[in-house]
């Protein structure tokens, strides 16, 4: 027996290729949407990986530092360093800021890190160019996606920083490039007031009789100084000695310091559930809508193609073709359309993904799942046309 579906497709291949390409673009969009979701998850995971931390110590009662703000004293890390299982503890601050570069601003996540050797928690783990931050002022490492050049001077608030290193895949959970600067600078940047505000504050302090006491002339200067320095950080990143259980150490820290401590797994679930959850559901809904649209298109096309073959189907039935053979022919055509569409979609998605501004991750497993989803949708969509074909009366082939 020959394949009726195959012969029909070969005969009217133009129609199939055209509709297949149209369907393929739709499938390409669908695959890209899934890739955007995967990219978001991957951005979040990469951000956590890049910290090199096993534990995040944050302000009591908060889910910081990514899902909400958290503030800790910057000398706290010393007591954590003294705990037995802790290998390293480092302060870190996170600030979403506009970083000036040339005449333009780049939206970036500015990370304040302690200066030190590569691998220090908080600092990028490897660089694609340049060196790590070694001085405690006015040096920066920028993610390559920021567009900054090595040696370039960038502006954060009122201060200028020299880009000494470039990193890669160091982005915030929402895809902004990270710019690493020394912790002290970051703390200052966080609280930096403009000159007018400083003058205002100093005037208020001078007018306050509690601060401006004639008997203690230095008090006002101390108050002014303390108000313009910032001793807060957002979190302490803790790296544990090999072979220790993060959950155990987290419990100990919680007990001794009464601070909130998150393990890597907990941090990840905070990011997933609190930070990217809405976007994920947005994309999921979009995927559902795209699937329905694709199904409707396939159903319509196959229905129309079958409608154009009513006469032939009546003849096929009259000369003794089984209903199963006719249904098979229609379903195979629908599946073939799906296969063409999937191939076109996969290729187009692969080509256009690099020009997306945010990271899009096309996972092979998603493609395989997508392939079977397309086949299932096409099989379902062909049922309408099959129903019609089965209703065709062979008597119609014999004229009236």
């Amino acid at each position, binding site marked *: 027996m*020959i394949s*009726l579906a195959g012969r*029909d497709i*070969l005969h009217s291949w133009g129609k199939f290729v055209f509709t297949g390409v149209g369907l393929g673009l739709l499938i390409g969009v669908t695959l890209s949407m899934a890739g955007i979701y995967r990219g978001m998850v991957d951005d979040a995971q990469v951000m956590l990986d890049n910290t090199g931390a096993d534990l995040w110590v944050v302000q009591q009662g908060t889910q910081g530092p990514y899902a909400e703000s958290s503030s800790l004293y910057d000398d706290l890390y010393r007591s954590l360093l003294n705990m037995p299982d802790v290998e390293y503890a480092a302060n870190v601050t996170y600030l979403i800021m506009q970083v000036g570069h040339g005449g333009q601003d780049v939206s970036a996540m500015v990370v304040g890190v302690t200066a030190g050797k590569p691998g220090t928690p908080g600092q990028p783990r490897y660089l694609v160019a340049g060196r790590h931050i070694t001085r405690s002022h006015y040096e920066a490492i920028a993610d390559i996606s920021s567009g900054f050049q090595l040696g370039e001077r960038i502006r954060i608030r009122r201060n200028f920083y020299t880009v000494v290193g470039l990193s890669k895949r160091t982005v915030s959970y929402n895809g902004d490039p990270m710019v690493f600067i020394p912790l002290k600078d970051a703390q200052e940047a966080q609280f930096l007031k403009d000159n007018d505000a400083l003058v205002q504050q100093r005037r208020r302090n001078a007018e306050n009789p509690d601060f401006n006491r004639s008997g203690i002339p230095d008090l006002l200067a101390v108050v002014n100084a303390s108000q313009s320095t910032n001793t807060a950080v957002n979190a302490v990143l803790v790296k544990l000695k090999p072979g220790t259980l993060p959950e155990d150490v987290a419990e100990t820290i919680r007990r001794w310091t009464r601070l909130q401590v998150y393990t890597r797994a907990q941090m990840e679930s905070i990011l997933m559930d609190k930070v990217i959850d809405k976007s994920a559901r947005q994309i999921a809904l979009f995927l559902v809508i795209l699937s329905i649209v694709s199904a409707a298109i396939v159903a319509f096309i196959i229905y129309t193609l079958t409608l154009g073959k009513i006469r032939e189907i009546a003849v096929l039935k009259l000369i*003794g073709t089984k209903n199963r053979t006719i249904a098979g022919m229609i379903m195979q055509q629908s599946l073939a359309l799906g296969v063409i569409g999937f191939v076109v979609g996969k290729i187009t998605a692969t080509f256009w993904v690099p020009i997306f501004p945010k990271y899009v991750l096309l996972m092979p497993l998603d493609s395989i799942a997508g392939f079977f989803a397309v086949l299932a949708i096409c099989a379902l969509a062909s049922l309408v046309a099959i129903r019609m074909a089965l209703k065709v009366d062979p008597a119609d082939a*014999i*004229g009236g």
Partner: protein
Amino acid sequence: MSGKGIHIEGLKKRYGEGDTAVHALRGVDMQIAPGEVVGLIGPSGSGKSTLLKCLGAVIDPTAGRMVLGDEVIFDNDWKVRDLRALRRDKIGFVFQAPYLIPFLDVTDNVALLPMLAGIPNSNARAKALELLTALDVQHRARAMPSQLSGGEQQRVAIARGLVNRPPVILADEPTAPLDSERAMAVIRILNDMARQFETAIIVVTHDEKIIPTFKRIYHIRDGVAHEEVGEGRGFE
């Protein structure tokens, strides 16, 4: 008993029920021997198509008895179970328009029937080619139907009707779209085939050009078939 050919006794067909019922066939008797080509004529609405549909096993008669070849296919309340296989193996159809499958080439259009019956592709194609040769269209064997002339298409359609060597061929206005020369050619082919393959052929027609060629004609009026002797011109 019946032997081969077509035997119809007291065939009745009623469409619908009660007041609106149409009695399309009111008791038709017909005998067509193997190798015989018989004309079926009658005014519009007389029941020609209805008779052909009953014989073609696509609608059920209301009463009567039909024998195709050596098989009783309908006897009042009883009928053959697998009508699909019956149509495939026992009946060849030739229509007013050729109704070839546009996406199959000429050979496969003809070979499709034996393939549907489970015969391997190469054997089925060999059978098809044999008939295409008999009908003198073998040189177009690899062409698509849309590339053939009307007459060639009709010959391919006849080849398809004959390929399973059915004992019966039902032809519904097979010459309507053809000019008189081509129409006569089709009739000649049907006569040749009838003789060669021992097939009983009924040709429904309005076509004045070909009516004189039949030796025997059934004239249907108001659902009853009246046998008439034809001129039998052109074929001995």
